[in-house]
């Protein structure tokens, strides 16, 4: 009986894995035996695997990834350092919310990437431009998620701390900060996607290195297997971070039953 329960728990990822593998086989099979493969248009898993091995073993792809990551980490860290305090400030002081909310909401809702060409032409194609763009894109999820988190802080808990003689700093450190931890992680999850957009836009546009540049360069030279390999690599990285953060969110807040639209 327990075996049946175990099976249903693993059923979902198992079916998922089977369908992924199944698709790979179908893809390979179809384009090897049935559909003629135009190398300038498409590719198949075996070729992608070869290109992947080659690119990773020679180190080329890792170098590109490292370059992009450096800019990403700088921009992301700045977004964390700037975004969280602003979010706390807005959430805790009502006047701050009134002043800043319309302005920041307008910015968050707009496609700020539209400013990307300006950034790139102004800062050049080096690290500064990338970091600035990534920061601009990644800071808002932190601001708004932390803002929401602070506003959601259980006022009862603030009263409890105050009733035992807690001061303002106690409220911040013993109630607000722990409460907003899951919100920070949720913000990070969204900010990662936006940050990667920043990387890609800067690198598609005029860079000479980085993984975005690699993808676009492979495209220009019709090296499809390499291109797919690079795209897959980026996908894997993105999934690891995003899902990892999702798990972290759950660990940090087992008491939260929240519903959330992704």
């Amino acid at each position, binding site marked *: 009986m327990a075996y049946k329960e175990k099976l249903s728990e693993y059923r979902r990822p198992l079916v998922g894995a089977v369908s992924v593998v199944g698709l790979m086989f179908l893809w390979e099979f179809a384009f090897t035996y049935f559909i003629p493969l135009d190398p300038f248009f498409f590719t198949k898993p075996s070729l992608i695997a070869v290109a992947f091995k080659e690119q990773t073993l020679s180190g080329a792809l890792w170098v590109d990834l490292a370059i992009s990551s450096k800019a990403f980490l700088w921009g992301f860290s700045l977004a964390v350092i700037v975004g969280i305090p602003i979010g706390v400030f807005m959430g805790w002081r009502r006047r701050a919310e009134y002043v800043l909310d319309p302005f920041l909401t307008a910015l968050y809702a707009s496609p700020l990437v539209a400013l990307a060409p300006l950034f790139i032409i102004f800062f050049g194609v080096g690290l500064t431009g990338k970091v600035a763009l990534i920061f601009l894109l990644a800071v808002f999820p932190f601001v708004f998620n932390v803002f929401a988190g602070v506003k959601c802080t*259980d006022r*009862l*808990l603030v*009263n*409890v*701390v*105050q*009733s*035992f*003689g*807690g001061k303002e700093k*106690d409220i911040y450190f*013993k*109630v607000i900060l*722990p*409460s907003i*931890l899951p919100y920070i992680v949720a913000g990070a999850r969204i900010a990662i996607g936006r940050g990667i957009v920043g990387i890609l836009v800067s690198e598609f546009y005029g860079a000479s290195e980085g993984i975005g540049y690699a993808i676009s360069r492979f495209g220009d030279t019709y090296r499809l297997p390499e291109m797919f390999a690079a795209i897959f690599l980026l996908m894997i990285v993105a999934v690891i971070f995003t899902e990892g953060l999702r798990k972290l969110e759950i660990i940090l807040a*087992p*008491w939260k039953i929240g519903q959330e639209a992704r």
Partner: protein
Amino acid sequence: MATCIQAKDVSLTFRPKNREPVTALSALSLDVSKGEFVSIVGPSGCGKSTFLNILLGLIKPDTGVMQLNGSRITGPGQDRAMVFQEFGLLPWRTVLGNVELGLELKGVEVSVRRPRARELIEMAGLAGFESHYPHELSGGMKQRVGLARALATDPEVLLMDEPFAALDAQTRDLMQAELLQVWERTKKTVIFVTHSIEEAAYLSDRVVVMSARPGRTKTIIRINLPRPREYEMRLSAKFNEIKAEIWNALKEELMGKGAGNGI
């Protein structure tokens, strides 16, 4: 008996933005003796919780004087602690962490506060649950943590804001009995706000019936039942008389004889 708490002509009006001001309390006066168990009942919105919060020191009254042992209450202090209806436990702290909170905020060091917290956890019947988180506990257990936390700082006065309202009937009866045991043992002065006439009559030395909003003390009824109270007393004729007396005083307020909006 020595007077512990003295409230004299306490008034408070709330002025929310964009809305009519609300007078919660109007010239409320009440004296509570040391070691007394006093319950406060009254219609919804009569200001009972507001009164507790003023006693706690979180709100300042507009007029009037609130004193504890002769000195004016100006803010929260170590001599008073509150037990909240919705428990108010920090969800990210264990039972131990929660019980320690009051002591921690007073700056008591770990080596002193930890054993004290453990002591109280045991007294509350939660031995073995020190490392559990609030979401793993039942309602009754959560409120025991709340009580342990309040007692940890050894306050003179225990303020309880409908502490058992969120519990099911059986747990509630249990907690009432336990509360009385704790009270007999620790001799604290208790101010207990409740909606339940039965609870008020069963637990207290005196029951204060508050008027409808704006709140003031309408009637004070002395409960002449022997201590320690036993469950069977609830089934006696005398108890029913007491309940009827309280209900009669309360009824008028509920029917809107006093000012404030009706039901």
